[in-house]
């Protein structure tokens, strides 16, 4: 069954069936990455362009590996090497790339809504690899896959997302994805980092970490950026850590089987303590592994389903 959407601009556009199908497809593709020869011919002759206007190692590499494992030709273009520094606008850049007939455009951009803008002018499917503070759909999908791997199901689980919710596209995508899958979401952070009106989206808001994680199945810790201090949103990282760093002590009050995830990159000791990060309950590296599978699934569902066998 094809997805209900041509582009992956955000979780907002995906149905529950879409998400389920992406997770199931990713499950079946995982095995490829464990082989001795990690390559299938599924997307041979397809061209994928990674257009990254913001620095990214993990996400860009993950999309690149995903494409290559399926035999697509993957080209990386970063903001600093693209023509945008010469004053060419986003739409011109994308149209020029499209004139070279890519099959998928993967876009990372620091402005919310940039992939939606591109989708109006570009014919090939677009995958949003993170736009401003808006969405990061492949991250939310890999988070769901990681949680499902360990719990076996998603419906009914409770998750706490801790940190800078205001500026987090990961939080926005996860809130939507988790709610779509029937999960309960609670966000935790200092009030200046909680965006206006979140409660009306059915999200619980808390400012007390140990209280908030007492009964949750999963805690997702977000990266905190020093930049927020300059914007007057944080007093200091030190004080932030005092209240919101996930430590063994705070975890002592949580359930034994709590899962810990983090979209990376991690500020060790700021939002999460080193020992917690490396504890068996931490799935941070599983997330990275699953990221490749999710991105393979997205490529496959957008491109390869009609003319190839995933194996």
């Amino acid at each position, binding site marked *: 069954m094809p997805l209900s959407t041509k582009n992956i601009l955000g979780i907002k556009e995906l149905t529950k069936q879409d998400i389920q199908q992406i997770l199931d497809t990713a499950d079946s593709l995982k095995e490829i990455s464990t082989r001795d020869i990690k390559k299938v011919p599924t997307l041979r002759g397809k061209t994928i362009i990674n257009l990254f206007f913001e620095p990214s190692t993990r996400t860009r590499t993950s999309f690149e590996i995903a494409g290559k494992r399926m035999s697509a030709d993957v080209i990386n273009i970063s903001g600093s090497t693209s023509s945008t520094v010469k004053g060419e606008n*986003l739409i011109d850049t994308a149209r020029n790339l499209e004139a070279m007939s890519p099959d998928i455009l993967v876009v990372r951009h620091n402005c*919310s809504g940039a992939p939606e*803008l591109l989708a109006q002018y570009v014919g090939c499917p677009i995958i949003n690899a993170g736009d401003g503070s*808006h969405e990061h759909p492949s991250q939310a999908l890999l988070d769901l896959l990681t949680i499902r791997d360990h719990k076996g199901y998603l419906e009914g689980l409770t998750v706490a997302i801790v940190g800078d919710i205001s500026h987090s596209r990961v939080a*926005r995508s996860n809130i939507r994805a988790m709610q779509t899958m029937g999960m309960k979401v609670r966000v935790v952070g200092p009030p200046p980092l909680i965006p*206006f009106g979140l409660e009306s989206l059915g999200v619980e808001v808390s400012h007390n970490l140990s209280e908030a994680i007492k009964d949750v199945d999963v805690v997702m810790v977000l990266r905190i950026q020093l930049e927020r201090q300059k914007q007057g949103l944080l007093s200091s990282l030190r004080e932030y850590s005092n209240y919101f760093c996930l430590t063994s002590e705070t975890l002592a009050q949580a359930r034994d089987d709590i899962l810990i995830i983090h979209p990376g990159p991690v500020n060790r000791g700021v939002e999460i303590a080193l020992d917690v990060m490396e504890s068996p309950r931490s799935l941070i590296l599983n997330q990275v592994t699953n990221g490749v599978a999710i991105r393979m699934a997205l490529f496959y569902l957008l491109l390869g389903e009609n003319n190839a066998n995933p194996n």
Partner: protein
Amino acid sequence: MQTLIKNGRVIDPANQIDGSFDILISDGKIEAVEPQGKLTGSKIKNLPIIDAKDCVVAPGFCDMHVHFREPGHEYKETIETGSASAAAGGFSTVAVMPNTSPVNDNCSVTELIFSQAKKTSLVNIFPIGAISKGLKGETLSDMGELKEAGCIAYSDDGRPVMDSELMRRAFEYSRMFGLPCIQHSEILDLTRDGCMNEGIVSTELGLKGMPVEAEDIMVFRDISLLQKTGGRLHVAHISSGGAVDLVRQAKAKGLPVTCEVAPHHFTLTEEACRKYDTNSKMSPPLRTHEDIELIKEGLRDGTIDIIATDHAPHDLADKQVEFSKACFGIVGLETALPLTLKLVDEEVINLQKAVDLLTHQPCRIFNLDKGTLGVGKDADIVIFNPKTKYTIEPAKFKSRSKNSPYKGWKVRGKICYTLVAGKTVYSS
């Protein structure tokens, strides 16, 4: 040179006229306004006639807040194209904001605007001079020179005067010249990098919000200053329900405060920004349903004095970009009438009041000898059919720019003729 306008319903709030009248125009002036059929005899034989059957005949509309971009940004609009847009929207008089390049902060720029207007404009152009030199908010402009050159008000529009001391002095100094200070009310500290109203939609879209309090606080500050300084405050494009209430309280105290509302602030909410439509990006931003209700209440009880469009044309290059990078504003002149008539449909105001808000009231506040059909006055006249239905097509705008969120809206109220000094400058 004479013209007779027959068979129309004349609405002239300045003279408290609403009824079936014929209007005789002679040498660009209103010669006579008489009950239908009363103008007879040799005097009117063989005259060119405009038949205004089923139409409203009113003073040409007056928009006290437009941006015509000349000098400096002619690729967006010029005085010529802006005036054509005005004429198409039924406006015979506009006041142009000083945020051009160079800024209208001295008499040579004012004179340039007048000379360009004389050469190319279809409608009457009244310049607004800057409050501060270069709109920088640092030192006062030469307000006397600007007035003598023909400016009718002072404003740093687009940029609020953040420095409270400077604003205080602007109110004080402007008193000498009797002209109002128009404020774009926005505390910039609260809206830095913001690109839409702060609310549930900005939260969902991940866009930096501009909280409504940024407007309220500035309106409150200016009203507070005014009590001591004297002078006159005109609040531009009010968009916040809270600000409407502050103006209401100030008026109750008898303070010389007036305000305007733009049609987009009573017809659209922040919801229009979903899908990152840059044509819905304005400053002040589109707010909420509650704000619209409070604005309508302000229109009903007279707190809001006038309707002004904040006509802000932008080229595609400035709008076809990422939402956070797009320019603020929309083409306003050519959709003002049908959007205002929505207020009549919704029984917020009646048709006479709608005409009043677009004619007599702006001229009263800005002390212009316009907005009236009084005998002897300039024959600036609009004739519109309030019933005609049509679909808004920005591609057909006379403005050089086409940035409008109203594409595809089915509306009613169509301009048939616009006359300036007796001359037809637009006919449908």
